[in-house]
């Protein structure tokens, strides 16, 4: 019988709220990896006492008690708008909007696009898991061509539903100089953390709007085991959605 130790602590970001762990996401869900990278970025920048975290409806709302920071639950799709209001009222705070692909690219696309157009000094983080996770796996703007979901049982048809939304490419094309835009993946958490840090720095030094999309996993709705989960993330998803920096203050920027 193995001996249980109590003198070793897990390597959790300091800003994670330990009392609420293990967190509420499904086994194998990428939200946990995204929020670990974000927690490490917050720790390394030393900004925990200044962060205000706003979460969308969707599986993001399971992060309502995730960090030891002030957190606000918004209506579906309104996270960028609420985050903007908080930032404008308290400009010394560091405001992070956390949403899914349904929240950011479907019901709340107007808020994302216009926050970028106004160059709001907020950091917007969008988790792309190619479906509406919380409601049972319906088709999202990010669902891949041919991908089967609850509402595309024969696979997404480009003819009927159009091409998948490429968020960072769209935001980079319209955002002002000084904005930061990137796409990372939970397959490379250290690179994702670097993108989060640069996005938060763009907000902290006031250079402009910052947006990071994270390619993520949803084994529950994809109905995938661990092997197939990685294979979908690192295969068809990575092919459709190139990772890299799309806009860097002072540099322009392009995909990897």
């Amino acid at each position, binding site marked *: 019988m*193995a*001996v*249980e*130790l*109590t003198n*070793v*602590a*897990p*390597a*959790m970001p300091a800003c*994670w709220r*330990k*009392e609420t*762990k*293990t*967190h509420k*996401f*499904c*086994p*194998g*869900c*990428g*939200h*946990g*990896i995204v929020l*670990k990278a974000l927690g490490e970025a917050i720790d390394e920048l030393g900004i925990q006492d200044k962060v205000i975290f706003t979460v969308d409806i969707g599986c993001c709302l399971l992060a309502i008690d995730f960090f030891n920071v002030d957190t606000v639950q918004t209506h579906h799709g309104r996270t960028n708008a609420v985050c903007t209001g908080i930032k404008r009222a308290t400009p010394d705070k560091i405001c992070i909007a956390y949403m899914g692909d349904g929240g950011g690219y479907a019901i709340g696309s107007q808020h994302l696009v216009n926050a970028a157009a106004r160059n709001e000094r907020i950091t917007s983080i969008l988790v792309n898991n190619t479906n509406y996770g919380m409601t049972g796996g319906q088709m999202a703007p990010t669902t891949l061509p041919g991908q089967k979901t609850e509402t595309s049982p024969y696979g997404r048809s480009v003819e009927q539903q159009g091409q998948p939304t490429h968020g960072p490419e769209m935001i980079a094309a319209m955002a002002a100089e000084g904005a930061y835009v990137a796409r990372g993946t*939970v*397959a490379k*958490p*250290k690179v994702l953390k670097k993108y989060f840090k640069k996005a938060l720095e763009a907000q902290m030094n006031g250079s402009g709007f910052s947006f990071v999309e994270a390619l993520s*996993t949803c*084994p529950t709705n994809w109905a995938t*085991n*661990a*092997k197939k*989960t*990685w294979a979908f993330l690192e295969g068809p998803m990575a092919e459709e959605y190139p990772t890299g920096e799309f806009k860097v203050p002072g540099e322009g920027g392009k995909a990897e």
Partner: protein
Amino acid sequence: MKEFKSIVNESGKGKFYLFTELCKGCGLCIEKCPKHDIGWTDRLGIYGAPTVESGRGEEGCIACKTCQNICPECAILIEKIQ
């Protein structure tokens, strides 16, 4: 501060701490280990699914921390054996 209990085993260059109350048994770490050194145990985790341990590969753990980095739960801690 909440404490989490761990079970440790050694393999190759790494001490592998597994926090049973955090592991959900997703298996993502098993697939990512470059040395195929992680496997299932009969100890159950927080959701009643099997938890994992190192020491299953032929060459042992190289303490690369890939498993620690990708675990969504922070259920693995790797310590390099000096």
